[in-house]
Every structure is written in structure tokens, then in C-alpha cells.
């Protein structure tokens, strides 16, 4: 199901722990990077890879906000909504993005290009407002910069 290099990488992650199950979150994240989300097929593959039941993978995968058990757009945008950002421009940023992308929080644009997710504090409070595009951090954002970033994210 996965290319050999990826499997080798996952095996290396697994080898860091005395029990395979402990590789759960890093393996799921890595698999998600490859496939966009943790689809049922990937979930079942991981269960076998870590010698656990599908339910154990499901329980963990559905817990974490940064593991997606539903399909997402080609690019995932996370905008911080927590207090420091909220009082330093995040509201304007939110309004701008929702209008520009014509989606609500959690939604995916019609063309499937972006999913707009809300994030809790991203540890960039001193450089608010902040957002992640495909887990890449962008700080001190002006609306003009946001437009540029979106433009550059094909």
C-alpha cells in the first residue's frame, strides 16, 4: 500500500519504542502526510503494522484534532482562535478567510483546494495572528500577506 521508502521510515519510527503500539501517533501523522487523511484503508494498515486492533487505531485517530479521519482539501489551513491571537487580529483574519474562501470553519472550498480549520493556541502568541498552511507556520500576518500566501499555495 505504501512505497518501500515510506514503510522503511515507518519501521524506523516503530523501532524507537519497546512496544510497537507506542509508534501510533507518529505513524498516523506520517501516513496522513502521505495520503491527506487517515482513510479506513490506511487505518487498517496501521493496525496491522502496529499489531493492534482497528478499534485501537480508531480510538486514537478520532481523538486528535491534527489527525483527520474525514477527507480534507488539498491544503489544510489552521488559524489560531485563542485569546492572544483573538485580540491581535485573528478575528479580522478569520473574517477575511471565510469571505475569501467562501467556507465556514471546518469546511473545504468548493474546488477542494483548501480546508479551513480552527486551531487552538499554536505557541506563537507573541507573533499573532498566526496560521499554518500544511503545517507551515506564518506569523504576524497582514491580510495582504495572507492573500499572497494563498496565491502561492497551488
Amino acid at each position, binding site marked *: 500500500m505504501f512505497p518501500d521508502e515510506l514503510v522503511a521510515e515507518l519501521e524506523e519510527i516503530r523501532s524507537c519504542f519497546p512496544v510497537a503500539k507506542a509508534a501510533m501517533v507518529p505513524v498516523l501523522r506520517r501516513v496522513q502526510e502521505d495520503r491527506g487523511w487517515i482513510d*479506513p484503508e490506511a*487505518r*487498517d494498515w496501521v493496525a496491522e503494522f502496529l499489531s493492534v*486492533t*482497528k*478499534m*485501537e*487505531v*480508531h*480510538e486514537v485517530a*478520532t*481523538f*486528535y*484534532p491534527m489527525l483527520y479521519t474525514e477527507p480534507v482539501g488539498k491544503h489544510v489551513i489552521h488559524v489560531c482562535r485563542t485569546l492572544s491571537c483573538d485580540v491581535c487580529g485573528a478575528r479580522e483574519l478569520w473574517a477575511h478567510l471565510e469571505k475569501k474562501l467562501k467556507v465556514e470553519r471546518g469546511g473545504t472550498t468548493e474546488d477542494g483546494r483548501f480546508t479551513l480549520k480552527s486551531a487552538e493556541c499554536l505557541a506563537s502568541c507573541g507573533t499573532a495572528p498566526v496560521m499554518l498552511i500544511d503545517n507551515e507556520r506564518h506569523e504576524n500576518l497582514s491580510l495582504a500577506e495572507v492573500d499572497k500566501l494563498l496565491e502561492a499555495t497551488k
Partner: protein
Amino acid sequence: MIKLSIDGREVEVEPGTTVLEAAATLGIDIPHYCYHPDIGVDGNCRICLVEVNGNTDKLAIGCKFPCGEGMEVETESEAVVKARKGVMEFLLINHPLDCTICDQAGECPLQDYSYHYGTGDSRFAEKKRNKPKHVEFSEKVMFDAERCILCTRCTRFFEEVRDCRPIGVENMGGKSTITTGPNGPIQDPYQMNIIDICPVGALTSRDFRFKQRVWFMDFADTVCPGCSKGCNITAGSYQGKLLRFVPRRNTEVNASWMCDDGRLSYDKYNMPERVRGASVSGDPASFDAARAKITELVGDGQGVAVLASTSQTSEELFAVREWARTARVRDLWHGERTWESDDFLKQADATPNTAGAQALGYASVPSQAPELRGLIVVGDVDVPPALLANLDFLIQQAPQAGELGEAAVVLLPGRNALEKNGHWTNGDGAVQEVRAARDPGPDVPEDWTIWRDLAGVSWTSIAEITKAMGAVSTADAEAVTAS
């Protein structure tokens, strides 16, 4: 040993004992939802909070907190009662409170505690959370996520008792839900136990759903007749009709569990079609006439054998044996019935009292059965066809006549496994009391009275037999059959 005080009362316990367990030895009942003695501790519901050494800022959970030397525990202090009310309120604000249509009503600790501690959801002016209400977990179990208090007893039952993961918790925080997730319907043959241990009405039996409100029902504490495990059960009925079996806790036998097959077997004991009164050669007859016929047929007892069901109680079998002794019938055999066993409770012997029968001298039917003139069939038993080959006569005493009935010269009624009193001895040698859970209706006397009257003994109650039986050892029994 560790000495501590609970509500001002001294108690001594083994190291490692929890506060909840220690309190129980004093008869103090600390409320609990997530803790279950046969699954163990998790500590998530927080209803069992207690005050330790006067610390009211941080309360300890009784179900997990270990007893310590000199500790002072309060289980009803102001802080504890307030916290408990608080937890109750938290549990109730998003709870549908549809007790009027809930199967758990009357058996629901949530309903009980809210009755005791009040408040309910009256301060909650918001919209309750919506979650799926009619989820089929399997053909046997329904799930209502709105009623669920997320105590995880159900998931831990499978994990810890059954070593499998058919259900789990998905999502996070207030959105957490029990789910079958990536799995299909639950397959486990013990799955219905989660219905009993669910402290609320979130898991319900599709079989029992909406059948009857529990407060209208009658209950008898008895033993499952399904196999030689003898799981302790409470049989519930309404107007003489059995509606359900649920396990009754016995740490020596079945803990809090029973198999689904045993649980769902209740209906066959309702027996609308059955033998009532005596008959001779197919015609209704008086018991006296039937007895006379039996005496005549059995004669000197030569060439006559008894084949008794191992669902009969030991008292009933004892009464039969007493008659056999007077009638000089030597061969006392017991029937056999098997099904597939498993690695948990279910035993291959699908009858409850083989050990009891054997202790009373009943033997398996010999592979080379002697030539028989007559056979006396007692109870619900499968008769090996070979035994029937050259019979002059067949006498049957049983709840249902079955195929044999036509051939029986004398047919007498009998009580089925849920209509009996007495004792069964399970496969591990535990002697367990059996209590009638339903009345068979007219013309079905208790089995032991039939054989008492035939034997001409003067017992007036089953307790008398139990006592008499205690006085007769297995050695005596052998002596009887050998004579």
C-alpha cells in the same frame, strides 16, 4: 494490616485496599458508576469522591484511593455531598431524562441518586447535546449515546474480561461516544453482559426492549439451567411468563456474567404446551390410578431401569431413588446432553446437575445396556434409541411428553428447570440453591411429591428431603443401587 477511620468508625484492612472497599466492610455504600468489582477501577465518573484528612480542596476518589495508616475518611461530609450533587448535576444536564420510556427505569442508579440528591438539570437553561439515540450495536444490543455517561464499563468489559475490542470510545471531550467504529456488529457470545453493567439505560437488550416495566415484574434468584457452570441468575417474569434472565453476582461461579445463549433461553421454560395431570395408555387418569399402574408394571423391579434428567434437582433425584429402592429397581441412569463449550463460562455439559446426579449414584447409561423390560424416564432427557428397542413398557414423568409421550403407558407431569426448588451441583462441585421462578399452572405437582407418594414416604417439604439427603452419603447411594 492498616488502620483507618471512615465516618468516625475504625476499620482494619489489608494494604492495597481501596477506600470504597474498606467502607463496604463497614456497610457504608459509597456511590459508584465507573467502578465495577468484576471489571475494576477506572476513576472517571467522580461520583465516589470522599474527603481524606479534612482536605476539601481536593477530594479523593474512593474507588481508587488506597487506604493509608491513620487516614481519616469522610463519605458524607459537606464537601462530599456538595461534590456528589455536582457530579449528579453534570451527569444530568445533558441526559435526556426520558425515564418514562427508558428500559432502565426502576433499576437506574442515576434515577436513584437524583431522587436522593435532587437538583437534576433544573439549573441548566441551555440546549442539551444531541447524539445518536438508536444505534444497533448488534442484533442483541441497542445503544443510546444521549443516555450514556461514558463510564466505559462496557468497553472495559470486553477489554478486561473478554480480551477483545468490539467497541471503543471515539472523538474527544463532550463529543466522545461509544462506538463499534471500524467493526461490524458485536459478535462476542457474552456481549449482553454490557447491558447489565451499563449503569444507565444506554445499552438495552433488543430482546427485552419495551417488554415490561421492571416494577411490575416478579423476580426469583436461581441458577441458569443451560450448562454445568450453573451461572447464578435472577429470572424476571410478568404474570407467570418469564421475560428475561440476568446474571447474579457470585464470585465463586460466574462473577457477574452469563453467556448470551443461557440468557436468551428463558422463553423455552414458558412451555405453553405441556403435560397436565396423569394419564394411563393415553387416557387421562387419576394419580392413584397411575400409581397403581406403575406398581403393576414394575413388579419385582427386575429388568427395569430409571433414566433421569440431570436438570432435575438433587432432591427430586433423591425422591426417585427412594422410590427405586422400595420398588427394587437397581439401575439408576442419568441422561446426557452436550453443546459446544468455550473458554469462558460455557461448559460442554448442557445440563445443570450431572454432578448432583452422580453423587446420588446415578450412572451414565452403560454402552452395553442390559436387556430391559421397562424404562422409567424422569424429566427432560434425551433417551438413547437403543434403550427403547425391546421394551414392554415405558413410564414418563416430564414437563413435556415429546416424541416418547405416545409410547408411554403411564405419563405424569413434571416441572421444568425454572419451576423447581432444590439444589443443583455444578461441574466444579458447588451445590447451589434453585428456586422456582414461575408457576406451571394447574395439575403440575412438584416432581418430588409424585415420587414421595409412589415410595410411600412422609416428607412434607422439600427442605426435609434436603436434610435427609445430607444424611445419606454417596457410599449409601452405591449400596442402594447394588442391592
